[in-house]
């Protein structure tokens, strides 16, 4: 910890340098990128926060959850409810200051996770996945019927995040930085950047810390973990609560960027997409979850926007052509299958291989599981050696 500048290894300097470079690029982005790219970036960052929560739950703790979208919805609607105006005749709202409401949304999602955690602590693998799937359908029903809370099928408008009168996710008041007008997307970009950094730091600390090691042992051998003094039920419940809180934070960010939330946004597709993100990224890898979130969120839109130039793609889908929406689904599905077959470790696995080939020693970090049957929770493949 107290090593001097001189004694730091080359690899860690490179690591530090790349983090610095990434930060600089992220900070500078709003000054150069068009609003539409910023918006896509904000969505990616919001989704990434949720994916980090799920990758810790599924990858590190080995608990399959198909209900991530439900907890995202709790965060989003929780914020809408807490920050909503109490004067609205049709919708309930508490009129909390938005920052407090945002924290409240995360807490509500964590509480929802806590309520579900007795189930999470007792079931594992596919059984837990199926039990959590029920939450998605219960959630869909609640969103459609709890009108005063959710607006029902009509959805609910989101109050912008603001400190006093200064909106962090709106256009009010007008202001510019270095001559660049700072509208909603520019401001929200920085809020999301702050959120994703906090999420990465917190998640890394948990994964590499005591409870992360306990979770990995739990995942690989419950009996051994119990013998080592790990409180099995409690650790499992904690992992679920932690992941739900991350989902809640993602929900708050998504709500802020959507400005209006409808039940259709939080269905089974969203939960499946989250799973796709962590599989593509490599289960258990935080960096992988971020990369996976960016790919899953941005790829369909990028393909839709750029594919009109291709001869076999037509917007209206005439004879012998396919629509960009269909093309992006095909490419997306093919990418997931290719990754699962070629490198079950996902992008994280590919990166590790590349780094090793170049010859830098990788920092000792937790090794994610690669491909295990989720059925009985026992590892069927030897973990990759560091």
């Amino acid at each position, binding site marked *: *910890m*107290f*090593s*001097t*500048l001189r004694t*730091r290894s080359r690899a860690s300097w490179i690591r*530090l*340098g790349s983090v*610095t470079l990434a*930060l*600089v690029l992220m*900070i*500078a982005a709003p*000054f*150069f990128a*068009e*609003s*539409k790219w910023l*918006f*896509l970036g904000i*969505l990616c960052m919001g989704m990434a926060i949720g994916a980090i929560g799920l990758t810790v739950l599924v990858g590190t703790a080995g608990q399959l959850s198909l209900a991530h979208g439900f907890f995202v919805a709790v965060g989003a609607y929780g914020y809408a409810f807490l920050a909503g105006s109490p004067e609205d005749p049709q919708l309930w709202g508490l009129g909390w200051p938005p920052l407090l409401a945002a924290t409240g949304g995360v807490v509500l999602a964590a509480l929802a996770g806590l309520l579900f955690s007795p189930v999470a602590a007792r079931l594992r693998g596919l059984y837990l996945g199926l039990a959590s799937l029920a939450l998605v359908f219960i959630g869909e029903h609640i969103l*459609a019927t709890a009108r005063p809370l959710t607006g*029902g*099928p*009509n*959805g609910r*408008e989101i109050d912008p995040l603001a400190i006093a009168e200064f909106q962090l996710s709106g*256009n009010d008041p007008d202001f*510019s*930085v*270095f*001559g*660049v*007008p700072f509208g*909603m*997307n520019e401001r929200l970009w920085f809020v999301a950047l702050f959120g994703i950094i906090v999420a990465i730091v917190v998640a890394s600390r948990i994964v590499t810390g005591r409870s992360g090691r306990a979770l990995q042992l739990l995942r690989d051998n419950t009996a051994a973990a119990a013998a080592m003094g790990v409180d099995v039920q409690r650790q499992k419940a904690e992992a679920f609560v932690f992941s739900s809180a991350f989902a809640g934070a993602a929900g708050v960010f*998504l709500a802020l960027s*959507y*400005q*209006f*939330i*409808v*039940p*259709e*946004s939080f269905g089974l*597709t969203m939960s499946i997409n989250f799973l796709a993100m962590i599989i593509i990224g490599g289960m258990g890898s935080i960096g992988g979850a971020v990369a996976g979130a960016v790919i899953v969120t941005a790829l369909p*839109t990028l393909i*839709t*926007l750029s594919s009109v130039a291709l001869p076999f793609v037509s*917007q*209206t*889908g*005439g*004879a012998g*052509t396919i*629509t*960009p*929406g*269909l093309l992006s*689904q095909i490419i997306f599905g093919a990418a997931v299958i290719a990754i699962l077959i070629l490198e079950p470790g996902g992008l994280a696995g590919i990166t590790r291989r590349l780094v090793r080939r170049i010859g830098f020693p990788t920092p000792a970090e937790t090794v994610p599981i690669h491909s295990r049957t989720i059925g009985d929770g026992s590892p069927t493949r030897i973990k990759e050696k560091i």
Partner: protein
Amino acid sequence: MKRSWHVSAAATVALSVLLVGCSSKVESAVEVDPGSVKTDIGVTADTINLGAITDLSNVYGPLAKAIVAGNQIYFDGRNADGGICGRQVAIEVQDHASDPQKALTLFQAMQPNVLALTQLLGSPVIKALQPTLTQTETTAAVASWSGDFLDDDYVLLGGTTYPIDNINAISYLLDEGKIAKGDTIGQIYFDGDFGGNALTGTEFAAEELGLTIESVMISPKDTDLAAQIAQLNSAGVTAIFVAAGPKQLASVAGNASALGLDVPIVTNTPGYNPALLTTPVGAFIESNVLIVSSVLPYGDETETTAKVVAGFDAGVTAGTIAADTVPTEEVNYGYAMATVLGDALDTACVNGDLTRAGLTKAINSLSAISTGVTTDLDFTDRALSPSTESFIISPSSSVLGKAVLVAETGTSKAAAAFSK
């Protein structure tokens, strides 16, 4: 460790400030071109760019293609006649596949390049985009007739709202003697801005005209409505209103026919699909179903509808309209919405203001648009339904558009008393 992170932080700040200082992203301003027409977004010296964000690859695909075709036919015609305000009109079509998030992203991407949207389809999508439309002052013609979307300066509804359609239809059935005062009528509806909105009209008409309503809420996932029809049957309904999709209409017809419930079944525009006529319940649908709509059936009965048919055929031949597009009244609707925008653009041009604000002002001044394919439209009070008249249409397998006009209801007395 600590010191090196300090170095990193300092470097981050310094580099960021350096980079940011070089930014070239500057504010854009309203431009006044030599032709003295004021423009801001989406309009250049020779082109007016419009957008359409719709569902081409998911459940509404066939419907959306027909609307796109209608949009295209109108603007192709205008472009051939020299364009609007001396400019050609171009439509950029994007596919949101019924995903609100994707629609929002596509809108953000398209927004800086287009003046307005000729089409925005899907209730969740419209609702998700409403705040953004308002912020960017972008007008969007929507493929919905829900009164829930009224009172918004940027959502353009092109016809009679569902509740007014239903009130007119009930009045029509009474006038024709198909139902009588004191009767019970059934209403099957989807919850939300379509069915829920239609129900308000049915309930209002029942109150005004002395009828009883037996309403049953269903979800789009319910496609077997045997229990619901049995419930309506035992309630002794003399007519069934269906504010749901074509699959639900098929089930309503099938079960009613099985129970011998030989009553008129009235559906709103989104409930009918010509493909229903080729199903086993096709004959029953043809004899019992009526469609209440403010859009004329596809076909060549009138001068304008004939023009649309000719435009459609020419478009398919030329390849600008996808060959697998099924022509339905949605083509007419697309044509109608394009006509509204076209008229508004003409007015805005005369006012010398082709900006977004100018377009909104122009739309709000249009008091009597005759699209030739819908009832006449009035946009001077955006809190009110643009039209209060309806067409009663009957499915028919023997004609081109698989539906024929039966009657024009005009504005019924009860509809005139309805607030939205």
